[in-house]
């Protein structure tokens, strides 16, 4: 590990009985954030995950816009998970307007989501997170020694991109998603061509699971309350109820009754808690812990093959869960493409404007993404609320850091800082998404 860059950006002061760790700019995460940890007398006194990414006021931006614009505007919140924003947006709008779409359109939305899970998880796993476990500063350094697997990883990401390009119109900020369905459906021949590439991608996804499951993982077990969508018949992506490993099981419209956000002075991103309970975990590990029995049979066999547990509470092993979800998404995409027989069917259903409030929640690669909109009788957005997964996970990240540092007080400074950054990267945080909102209170004297 090269220490020069870390020394420039971190400040570790170690006294006789106290230690302060401050990393001013987190590396290999999307967006701008820093971390501050203070220990004294062998106890962790304070942990702060500081987000200083500029807020971008998307919720305010949506006010006064037409309902049709919401999927395209919210997609711009993120370049790596735009499908998630579009899905949560259209589901919330359809909920408001009483629109029900036929199963084949649900399947196509699921296929689009598979594309995003593949490309987002692969990007994070190969280029941001794997270097941590192999002792490399970054993927560029890693690429000198791991050429073959990295090339396969990039091809895997490209397969995810191609699903999004075919069904969404382009890889970044897709343009084919609308309230009620899609603008246009591709021809079957285009899907069959894609299927051939996905079969190879599936092989690479399997190799990815085997590769990451052999990494060494730091020890940390956390008693998370995991929160994710749950569905009786499938590994939930965009349809279901909100469930938790502590017994929560609610309709999406009841999200605000059970969850709340609040501002902390050191972060431009809001933090989320379950009312009366505190922090919770959203994301791949939460999904896996709640829904693993719905993974495809071949994926279940692979999980047995690598000896992975049905419940995972070590956040460092989340990289294995991401690899499992990439493999599942390949299987699911191939299943849906094999069933595709719908190019002559309507690409969308009819939608009528009305005054209403609607709720939507889908599983972005990083976790549950909640949208709520209030429309007037002209279909104009009067109010919008968006809660991304990274802001929901902020408290969990801080608690992970607290516990990890507490259990590793004797670790040398440089190694501890590295592991703390790795602990944050366990979440694949998308900081730009989390800093979409800032409430401004003006007091005139």
């Amino acid at each position, binding site marked *: 590990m090269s220490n020069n860059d870390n020394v420039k950006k971190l400040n570790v002061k170690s006294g006789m009985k106290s230690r302060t760790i401050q990393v001013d700019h987190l590396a290999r995460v*999307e967006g701008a954030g820093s971390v501050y940890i203070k220990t004294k007398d062998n106890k962790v006194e304070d942990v702060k995950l500081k987000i200083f990414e500029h807020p971008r006021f998307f919720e305010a931006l949506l006010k006064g816009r037409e309902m049709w614009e919401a999927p395209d505007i919210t997609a711009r919140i993120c*370049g790596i998970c735009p499908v998630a924003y579009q899905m949560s947006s259209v589901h919330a709008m359809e909920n408001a307007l009483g629109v029900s779409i036929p199963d084949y359109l649900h399947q196509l939305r699921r296929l689009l989501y598979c594309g995003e899970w593949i490309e987002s998880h692969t*990007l994070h796993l190969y280029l941001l997170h794997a270097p941590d476990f192999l002792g490399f500063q970054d993927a*560029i350094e890693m690429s000198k020694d791991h050429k073959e697997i990295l090339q396969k990883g990039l091809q895997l990401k*490209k397969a995810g991109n191609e699903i999004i390009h075919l069904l969404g119109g382009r890889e970044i900020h897709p343009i084919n998603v609308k309230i009620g369905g899609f603008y246009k459906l591709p021809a079957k021949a285009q899907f069959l061509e894609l299927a051939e590439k996905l079969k190879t991608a599936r092989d690479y996804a399997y190799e990815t699971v085997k590769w990451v499951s052999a990494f060494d993982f730091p020890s940390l077990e956390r008693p998370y309350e995991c929160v994710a969508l749950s569905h009786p018949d499938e590994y939930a992506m965009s349809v279901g109820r909100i469930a938790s490993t502590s017994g929560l099981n609610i309709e999406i419209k009841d999200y605000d009754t059970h969850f709340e956000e609040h501002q902390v002075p050191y972060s431009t991103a809001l933090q989320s808690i379950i009312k009366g309970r505190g922090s919770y975990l959203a994301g791949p590990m939460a999904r896996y812990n709640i829904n693993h029995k719905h993974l495809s049979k071949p994926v279940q066999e692979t999980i047995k093959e690598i000896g992975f547990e049905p419940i995972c509470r070590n956040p460092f092993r989340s990289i294995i869960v991401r690899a499992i979800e990439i493999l599942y998404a390949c299987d699911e995409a191939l299943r849906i493409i094999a069933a595709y027989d719908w190019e002559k069917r309507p690409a969308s259903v009819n939608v009528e404007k009305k005054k209403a409030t609607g709720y939507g929640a889908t599983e972005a690669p990083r976790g549950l993404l909640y949208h709520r909109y209030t429309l007037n009788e002209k279909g104009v957005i009067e109010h919008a609320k968006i809660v991304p997964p990274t802001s929901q996970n902020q408290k969990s990240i801080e608690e992970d850091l607290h516990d990890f540092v507490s259990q590793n007080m004797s670790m040398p400074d440089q190694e501890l800082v590295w592991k703390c950054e790795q602990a944050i990267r366990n979440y694949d945080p998308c900081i730009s998404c989390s800093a979409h909102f800032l409430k401004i209170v003006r007091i005139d004297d």
Partner: protein
Amino acid sequence: MTDIIIVGIGNRYRGDDGAGWAVIDKLIVISKAIKLVRQQGDIAELIDIFANYKSVYLVDACLSNAHIESWKRIDLNKQTVIEENLQTSTHGFSVSQAISLAKNLNRLPDNFILYMISGDNYNISDQLSPPVAGSVAQVVKALLNEEDIKACMNKA
């Protein structure tokens, strides 16, 4: 099937970051002979392009400073481009990191040229600033004077 590709990288709706795409818009006349692509900087797509074409021209905008003229031609097989602010695109992957990764993976083209246009305004806008619009015109002229591009157009 052409071995030459010109890739405009950027975002049409972020002011001068649309310079790369604007160059591609103006080159559309040669699109039968040369492959033209508008890209938003996806690392996997870029590395694939580098590996699959013998001659790759990239056009991208950068933040200007006192040391950079209005535009610059860089031979990427001979020079290294280091970007100081690496948080320039989603998940912090810059074009220079894509190039470094491609180099380590032995996926570089034989001819690899970057046209870097100095921009100033990166706010939300679908307009280029006047100096950048001028640079776009000059870069288009320079590309049409590249030897392999001229030869390919003469054949077509």
